[in-house]
């Protein structure tokens, strides 16, 4: 009997210690993920029956661009100041390139945000992590794309067209008086720029997403403008990367990168491109309006212009259709009616012209709301908005932006961009490389069907 007592004491101590350790590890995840939940489920704070119920929800968005981060933080601060009973826990801490990895990690540790900027709607909707956007919010927006007949996103901005951001000085020095009207004129301009001693184009090839900018220019012009359903045909194996139009697109891509792109493009990060442009190391950058602020910040006196690059026939095709992205409500948070109301209130507040206008001005965004929004823009952004409102400009989407039947396997995009890098580096045969693309695409489709 006496011998058992120390044993019992020992077991009790061990159990207590194990529980304490478990509590240390597990509490964080539980509180983090549902920290909001803990608060939201708590009863009224005793401030009286009329006092609004205290609610906390977590929020997350990609913070690669400091201006975007600041703009959203400003809106959050204004919202919580106006609604002191609602607390917003901001999880945002990662760059755009690692956003999906970061969200997956948050999900794995039980901290999937309640309100999340969703960029991979298909993946998270299929996994049941996000829910449909509440119907009473639909009226806020001009156009809401559907996935599987359901609307999941409140789009923060419209899909931004990409184009050539150029140094006015470099163009003047090279004797280029006006933006080219066809792709061939653009190539001739590259020759002039190279002859003037400047590297014609800077590319941030170290960040793999940046490779999509030029890829999508060629794909949209050569393939998607004529056949927006090309991706679904590729999935069904009725179209191939070895088709003439696709081979032409990739051949043009290879020629451009081999001849006119800055030599250090493969070790240049996306966030270094603005510096290379303003320091006069390169004359042009192919990117979107989100770069305007970064360029001005890098050198306020730097004079630059923007134009959408026309194709060989002089037609302009831009990245401008809506895609599946924007604020989404997590499935877990949607179970809590108080949280849903708080998140809806935030979304309504975010898209009110008083907040949305300054946000758009900061990020050089395109409005998505039915309510008229006015904000100050520079000459480059005016051109972007003109392109978006011009019906003669064809609106399309990039390789990985299509959704529904036209969605590509999620793993294919980065692999394909790397393949294109290798094609340029090894001066490979385009058709042979496109055969590899077909094989990989089919493998990915097969793997995802398992």
């Amino acid at each position, binding site marked *: 009997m006496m011998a058992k007592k120390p*044993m019992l004491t*020992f*077991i009790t101590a*061990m159990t207590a*210690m*194990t529980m304490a*350790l478990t509590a240390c590890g597990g509490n964080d995840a539980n509180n983090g993920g549902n920290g909001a939940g803990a608060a939201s489920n708590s009863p009224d704070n005793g401030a009286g029956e009329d006092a609004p119920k205290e609610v906390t929800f977590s929020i997350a968005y990609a913070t690669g661009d400091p201006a975007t981060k600041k703009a959203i933080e400003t809106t959050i601060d204004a919202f919580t100041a106006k609604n002191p009973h609602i607390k917003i826990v901001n999880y945002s801490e990662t760059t755009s390139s690692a956003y*999906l*990895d970061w969200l*997956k*990690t948050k*999900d*794995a540790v039980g901290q999937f945000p309640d309100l999340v900027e969703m960029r991979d709607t298909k*993946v*998270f909707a*299929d*996994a*049941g*992590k996000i829910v449909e956007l509440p119907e009473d919010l639909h009226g806020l927006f001009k156009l809401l794309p559907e996935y599987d007949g359901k609307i999941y996103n409140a789009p923060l901005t419209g899909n931004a067209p990409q184009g050539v951001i150029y140094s006015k000085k470099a163009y003047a020095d090279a004797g280029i008086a006006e933006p080219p009207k066809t792709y061939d004129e653009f190539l001739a301009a590259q020759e002039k720029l190279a002859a003037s001693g400047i590297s014609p184009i800077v590319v941030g*090839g*170290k*960040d*793999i997403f940046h490779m999509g900018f030029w890829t999508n220019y060629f794909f949209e012009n050569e393939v998607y403008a004529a056949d927006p359903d090309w991706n679904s045909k590729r999935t069904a194996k009725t179209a191939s990367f070895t088709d003439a139009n696709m081979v032409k697109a990739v051949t043009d891509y290879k020629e451009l990168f081999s001849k006119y792109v*800055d*030599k*250090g*493009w*493969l*070790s*240049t990060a996306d966030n*270094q491109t603005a*510096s*290379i442009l303003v320091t006069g*190391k390169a004359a042009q950058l192919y990117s979107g309006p989100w770069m305007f602020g970064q360029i001005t910040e890098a050198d306020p006196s730097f004079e630059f212009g923007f134009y959408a690059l026309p194709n060989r026939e002089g037609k302009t095709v831009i990245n401008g259709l809506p895609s599946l992205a924007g604020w989404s409500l997590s499935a877990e948070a949607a179970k809590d009616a108080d949280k849903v109301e708080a998140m809806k209130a935030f979304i309504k507040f975010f898209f009110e012209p008083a907040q949305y206008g300054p946000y758009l001005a900061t990020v050089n965004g395109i409005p998505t709301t039915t309510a008229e929004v006015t904000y100050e823009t520079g000459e480059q952004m005016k051109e972007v908005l003109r392109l978006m409102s011009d019906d003669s400009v064809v609106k399309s989407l990039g390789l990985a932006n299509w959704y529904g039947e036209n969605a590509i396997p*999620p*793993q294919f995009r*980065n*692999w394909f961009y*790397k*393949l294109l*890098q*290798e094609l340029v*580096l*090894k001066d490979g045969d385009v058709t042979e490389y496109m055969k*590899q693309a077909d094989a990989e695409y089919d*493998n990915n489709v097969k*793997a*995802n069907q*398992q």
Partner: protein
Amino acid sequence: MMANIKKKKWTNYAFWFLLPALLVYTGFVIVPTLSSVYLSFTSWDGISDDIRFIGLDNFIEIAKSPRVHNALKNTMIFAVALVVLENVVALALAVLVDQVRWFRNLFRSIFYFPVLMSGIIMGFIWMIILNYNFGVMNQLLDMTGLGSLKTDWLGDPDYALISIILSTVWKAAGYYMIIYLAGLQGIPQELNEAASIDGANRWQQFRHITFPLLAGATTVCVMLSMIGSLKIFDQIAVMTDGGPGFATETLTYIIYKVGFGELRQGFGTALAIVLFALTLIISLIQIKLLRKREVQM
């Protein structure tokens, strides 16, 4: 009899003392490892609750995938180059530091300093040094009239691999230097003195006395550097992101890329199992060979 009872009692107590650690180890290592084995036979995307068993499909794909073969080739290049260079440099540094008369501790600290840095920070430092447009390396070449030698050190497939190897050697050599140094200080000085009297020069002393007596340290260093090189990840993630193209992708790197970025956790886990098996086989062979050498010495 009493001794046996005491021993049994102590064994019982020892078990209870070990239990907390065993529970933690089981929860954080054994269970995830066994789960990984199961997940390697599934098509799990890492997010959804839908985990489908697909048998050996992931392993069949690994056997057929040119990307995996390329990563395996790169991993082997890293492993061989790093094991050789890290150990040669570490041994050379250890011998030099052992013989230096002044500032011995200062030199030890300087050579050991890079070890203290995280791989991520080290990667950023070298990425900045080797940047084509703004990097110190190319600026130095420009300033010294060697501008024609300017290279995209991390963007050219031929140089990217070499750049990562050399920067990793710079970081790791100090660690192995300390192990070799400990081995050197355990060698009786009389042996070298006797050899010197017999007319052996410095190289002959090193070749026939010092190096053989460092067999134990060599076994440890070679094995650690081999395991470390098979796991190389931080430098690649920061300096090249596996690029340009697929030029610096290694097995550990595509495990992460495929598992997290490409939403194929099942396939990534199967790759991890392959890497585990590979590391185990290489380590066992290495230990066997090096132990045999130790005995012969």
